[in-house]
């Protein structure tokens, strides 16, 4: 019989041996506390749990980040995942939110690969790609109340528009990116093009869910200039005032005033907003 250990001691030891580095699981302990099987030693039997632990979590990350995985390749993505699992072990009953730290980790670890602008570019691009892929997961799990109907826009009196606040859907995320990650994402998903670090080209993307489908929409600077403050809770009047104050390119203002209603219809149709509230005059 092995020396008596409490259930708690047994469990703490086992989790350490399963999740820790090889050196943390001394073979002598395994042979003492685990019996050999008909065809395997105690260590061989225990390794089924050790390898299963990492394989299970890496598989989860692969499901969450399919394009990042293709970009980095099997070896580098495997190393990244191993670092992820060590730094961010699961503490939740399910794995829905397990991969949420990937974008941050991509900026912290050394990633190999010569992109158009060198190693830092690889890290930043990988992080942005991870941000986009994680947004799809978040939006999938977000609450999505019935969207605002286009007809609701017509019910707003002309003089009330500047006082209108558009309540955003929880299933909407807006991003400013330094690299065209959405284009790279699409090229991989549709044409199976292996992602490489593209030329830097600042852009904006909306990620959202409509009718249970996940979507992404590229936003021009003028569109982002309006929709971002609205999503942050500003009234339309406040958003327009902010864009007038901040833009140095008069063309942006021309674009905005010419297209505002078209954009609104598009955003409402996409389910960006759930309702309109009109401030007191």
């Amino acid at each position: 019989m092995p020396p008596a250990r409490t259930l708690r001691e047994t469990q703490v030891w086992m989790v350490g041996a399963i999740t820790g580095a090889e050196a943390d699981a001394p073979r002598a302990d395994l042979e003492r506390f685990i019996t050999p099987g008909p065809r395997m030693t105690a260590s061989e039997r225990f390794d089924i749990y050790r390898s299963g632990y990492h394989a299970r979590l890496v598989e989860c990350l692969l499901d969450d980040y399919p394009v990042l995985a293709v970009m980095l390749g099997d070896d580098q993505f495997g190393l990244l995942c191993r670092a992820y699992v060590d730094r961010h072990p699961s503490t939740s009953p399910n794995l829905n939110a397990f991969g949420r730290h990937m974008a941050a980790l991509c900026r912290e670890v050394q990633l190999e690969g010569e992109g158009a602008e060198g190693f830092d570019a690889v890290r930043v691009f990988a992080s942005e790609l991870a941000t986009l892929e994680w947004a799809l997961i978040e939006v999938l799990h977000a609450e999505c109340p019935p969207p605002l109907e286009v007809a609701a826009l017509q019910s707003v009196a002309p003089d009330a528009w500047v006082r209108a606040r558009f309540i955003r859907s929880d299933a909407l995320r807006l991003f400013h990116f330094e690299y065209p990650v959405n284009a790279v994402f699409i090229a991989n998903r549709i044409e199976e093009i292996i992602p490489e670090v593209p030329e830097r080209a600042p852009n904006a993307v909306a990620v959202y869910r409509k009718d249970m489908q996940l979507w992404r929409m590229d936003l021009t600077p003028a569109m982002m200039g309006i929709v971002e403050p609205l999503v942050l809770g500003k009234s339309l009047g406040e958003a327009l005032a902010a864009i007038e104050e901040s833009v140095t390119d008069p063309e942006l203002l021309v674009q905005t005033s010419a297209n505002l209603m078209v954009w609104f219809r598009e955003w409402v149709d996409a389910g960006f907003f759930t309702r309109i509230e009109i401030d007191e005059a």
Partner: protein
Amino acid sequence: MNRFSLPNLGIGLGLRTVHYAHILEHAPAVDWFEILSENYMQTKGRPLHFLDRVAERYPIAMHGVSLSIGSTDPLDRPYLTELKALRDRTKARWVSDHLCWTGVAGKNTHDLLPLPYTEESLRHVAARVRQVQDILEAPLALENPSTYIEHAGNTMTEWEFLARLTEEADCGLLLDVNNIYVSAFNHGFDAQQYLSAIPFERVVQLHVSGHTNHGTHIVDTHIGPVIDPVWELLGQAYRATGASILLEWDAEIPSFEETHADALRARDFLVKAPS
């Protein structure tokens, strides 16, 4: 009929994402579906939307993997609250999980880790099962796990532990015949001895599935068609319990029709004597 008067729902399937579209479009004649509870927890989005549609048409039973009934960490109250809410939402006929623990000190391995089968473990798990049943206000069914190690400190067999646990905690049993087969191979015990020790009146559901045989050991992968020796164990267990049957297929999942056809093979083994 089991002692909890839970009905025999027939032959069911595990509800899997890849089959959502087929199920909602074709409404296939499946007796019932088992859901993996955690897939519909900590989400307010698409998974619940599909689940609601399925639950409108089919009886549902809930099967969890993260209750961690054997852990020495405190019971996860928010998890149990959400589990109960999901049960109420789906009108699930019963809730099950595994005789195992999944982590400790806040860390979840997401694996079904085997307990030492000792008096201490028995007291610990029985007390926690009673607490969970108080919270759920319904019997909990625990599944016999497939295991790859045995603790040197075991003072009883798994089947002895299960029989005593279900009695002391007054809980149900989800009997997985593939797990019996897998563990019997891995540890070198007799599956018939295991089966004969089961308190059949406590079995509310039967599980059957495929597995992966590596020669030195079998892993409970829930891949592939069920092999005949496992079907024969299912037939024996069914004749003794009359419980609902569920086919699990969790990886390399084929079309819905193929999965369902494999589940219906159970019929061939329910009445005939084992070969």
